[in-house]
C-alpha cells in the first residue's frame, strides 16, 4: 500500500448511523489523506451509499455513535451546507431535477456562495460564463446544457456528467462519488472518469462508492475498501478490486 503522506482530510472512527430506527452503519473507520483515491465496494445494502449520505449530512440519517473530522473540524456539528462550503462534495447517485432553475444560475450561486465563504470576489454573470465554458470542456458537455433547467430531461449519463461539472466548478477538497458509474455506457464512463482524473491534485482526494471494478480501470484507486453489513471489513490496494471482480464478495464476507 502506498501512503502518499498528505495531510489528513477525513478521519472517521467507529461511525454508527441509523435511518427510521434501523441501524445501517455499525462502526465504520476510514482515513483519507490529501492526494489519495479511495474506492468503497460492497454488495447492495452493505451501507456504502448510507455512508456517503451521512458524511454529507442527509437529514434522513441519524448519527448514533462515533466521530468524524474534516480537516480537523468536527463534521457532525456542521449543517449540510456548511460541510459543502468546507469543501466536502457529494456526486449523487440519482441527481434530482430542479425545474425552472437554470444550470448556469445554480452553478453561479453555488460558486459565489463558496467564493464568499473563502473571502474571495464573487463573479458577475459574464465573468462566470467564461469560467463555466472553460470547465464544461472537462466533461465534454455542450454549452446548451447550461441554459437548461438543472437535470430536467437529461439522460442518465448527462446527469452524471453534470455532477462532475459541478465538482469542476466547486473544486472540493474531498469528493465522494456515489455510484457515479451506474447507468453509464462505456463512452460516458470514460468521459466522467477523465473528468475526475483531470481534477485530481495533491491537495484533494476522491472517495468512489461503486459495485463494479470497471470504473477503477479508469480512476485508479490507492485503496480499495470492502464494506459489509455496515462495517469496512477489508482494505487493500487496487488489486483487491480485481480479486473481487474474479471471486465475488462471499469470500471476503466469510472471512469477516
Amino acid at each position, binding site marked *: 500500500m502506498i501512503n502518499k503522506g498528505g495531510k489528513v482530510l477525513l478521519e472517521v472512527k467507529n461511525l454508527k448511523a441509523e435511518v427510521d430506527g434501523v441501524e445501517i452503519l455499525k462502526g465504520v473507520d476510514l482515513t483519507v489523506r490529501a492526494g489519495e483515491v479511495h474506492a468503497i465496494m460492497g454488495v447492495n445494502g452493505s451501507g456504502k451509499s448510507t455512508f456517503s449520505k451521512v458524511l*454529507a*449530512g*442527509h*437529514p*434522513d440519517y441519524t448519527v448514533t455513535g462515533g466521530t468524524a473530522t474534516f480537516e480537523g473540524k468536527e463534521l457532525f456539528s456542521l*449543517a*449540510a*451546507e456548511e460541510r*459543502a*462550503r468546507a469543501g466536502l*462534495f*457529494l456526486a*449523487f447517485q440519482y*441527481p*434530482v431535477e*430542479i*425545474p*425552472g*432553475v*437554470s444550470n448556469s*444560475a*445554480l452553478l453561479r*450561486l*453555488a460558486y459565489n*456562495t*463558496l467564493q464568499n*465563504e473563502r473571502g474571495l470576489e464573487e463573479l458577475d454573470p459574464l465573468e462566470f460564463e467564461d469560467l463555466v465554458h472553460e470547465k464544461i470542456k472537462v466533461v465534454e458537455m455542450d454549452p446548451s446544457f447550461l441554459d437548461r*433547467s438543472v437535470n430536467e430531461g437529461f439522460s442518465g449519463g448527462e446527469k452524471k456528467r453534470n455532477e462532475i461539472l*459541478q465538482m469542476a466548478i*466547486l473544486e472540493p477538497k474531498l469528493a465522494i462519488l456515489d455510484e457515479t458509474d451506474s447507468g453509464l455506457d462505456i463512452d460516458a464512463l470514460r468521459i466522467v472518469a477523465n473528468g475526475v482524473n483531470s481534477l485530481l491534485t495533491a491537495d484533494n482526494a476522491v472517495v468512489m462508492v461503486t459495485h463494479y471494478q470497471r470504473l477503477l480501470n479508469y480512476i485508479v484507486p490507492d485503496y480499495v475498501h470492502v464494506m459489509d453489513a455496515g462495517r469496512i471489513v477489508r482494505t487493500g490496494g487496487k488489486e483487491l478490486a480485481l480479486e473481487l471482480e474474479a471471486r465475488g464478495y462471499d469470500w471476503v464476507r466469510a472471512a469477516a
Partner: protein
Amino acid sequence: MSSAIQNLVNQPYKHGFVTDIETETVPKGLSEDVIRLISKKKNEPEWLLDFRLSAYRHWLTMEEPAWASVSYPKIDFQDIIYFAQPKPKKQLASMDEVDPELKRTFEKLGVPLHEQKIMAGVAVDVIFDSVSVTTTYKAKLAEVGIIFCSFSEAVHQHPELVKQYLGSVVPSGDNFYAALNSAVFTDGSFCFIPKGTKCPMDLSTYFRINTEGSGQFERTLIIAEEGASVCYLEGCTAPQFDTNQLHAAVVELVALDNADIKYSTVQNWYAGDENGKGGIFNFVTKRGLCKGINSKISWTQVETGSAITWKYPSCVLLGDNSIGEFYSVALTNHLQQADTGSKMIHIGKNTRSRIISKGISTGRSSNSYRGLVKIGSRATGARNYSQCDSMLIGDNCGANTFPTIDVQNVTAQVEHEASTSKIGEDQMFFFAQRGIGSEEAVSMIINGFCKDVFVHLPMEFAVEATKLLGLKLEGSVG
C-alpha cells in the same frame, strides 16, 4: 418535510400595524338608510344613489356563492362598518396637507408618497380605509388629458364619463359581492386615457384597510380610448386583527379600438395567523372589456395575502382580434384558502387569450385554480392557451385545478396544460450539498417556478414580488 422548509414559510406579517388616527364611521350594518347616508356624506348626485339602491335591492334577492373551494363561517353583513374615513375630511391640495400620521403609515409601507420618490415617476392614488387620501402627479397627467383621481372626485368632476361606464363591464347585479359593492362602495380610483394617448408613467393605487370591523368596498374604473395605453399597478395591505375583514372590490376596465391596458396587482392583505384567526376575506370582481378591435387587456397578479381569496380577473373579448391575458402567482400558507383563476370570454373573431397560473401552497393551506374559457359561436379563429401549474411545499397543503372549457365554434383552438410539483427533501438536500442555504434554495426554486409570470410584472413590482414571496416562505424550509 424538513423543519427548514417549515421555518421558512412562517415569517410574521410586517404590515400588521394599526395607525392611530381619528376615524369617522357610520354605524355598523346595512340598510337603505345606511346607503343614503353614505351617498349623502359623499354629496353624490341622484343617479348614483339610484344605482346604489337598485344594486342593494338586487343584492337582497341574491345568495352568497357556495361553489368555490373555500370554507369560512357565515358572514354577518349587519356586523360590518360600511364606511370609515380618516378625519378631518377636507379637500387636499398638496401632499403637505396629508395627516402626518397617515404619511408615516405609508412611509412604513413603502408607498412612494413623498416628493423624491414621486420623482421616480409613478403616479399614486392612495385609498385608506374607504377614502382616497391623495392622488399624486394629477396635474402633470392632466396636461396630456389623462384623468387620474379618486372615484368620488370623478363622480363630481366627470359625471358623464362615470355614468357612461360605471357598471358597463360588471353590472350591478353581476354577482353577490359585486352587487354588495355597487350598493356601498365608498371610493376607489378613476382613470381615463383619451384617444391616442400613451400614459407617460405607470399609475398606481395603494389600498389599506385600517379600521377594525370595517369592510373595504372600493371601485376602480379605467377607460382607455382608441389607441390609448396605460400600465396600472395596485398594492394592498391591512393591519393585523383577530376578526376577519371583508374586502369586496370591483374593478372595471374598458379598452376601445387598439387600446391597451395592463393591470398588475401585488396583493398582501393580512392573511390571518397560523391558526387561521383573523385575516381579510378578499371577494373581488375584476373584469376587462376589450370593446374595440385589436384591443388588449392584460392582468398580472401576485396573491400572497388574505385569509380567503375569491377572485377571477377576466376578459370579455368583444372586439375582433382583441387579446386577453392573465398571469398569476398565488401563494397560500397556514390556513389560507385561495380560489382564483380567470375567465376568457371570446366573442369577436380571431380573438386570442392566454392564461398562465402558478399556485404555491404550503402549511395547511388550500390553493385552487378555477377558470373558464368560452368560445362563442361567432368567434371564428379564436385561440386560447392555458397553463396551470401547482407547487406543494410540505405534506399538509392541497392544490386543485378546475378548468372549464366551452367551445361553440369549430375553428377555435384551445389548449390546456397542467402540472403539479413538489419541493422535496431531496431537492433541498441537493442545494445544501452545493453549499446553498435553504432560504436561497426555496427562493430559487420558487422564482424559477414563477418566472413566466414575473416577466410580465413591471420591474419594481417584480422585485417586490420576489421579496414578498421570499418573506412569506421564510422559515418554511429546513
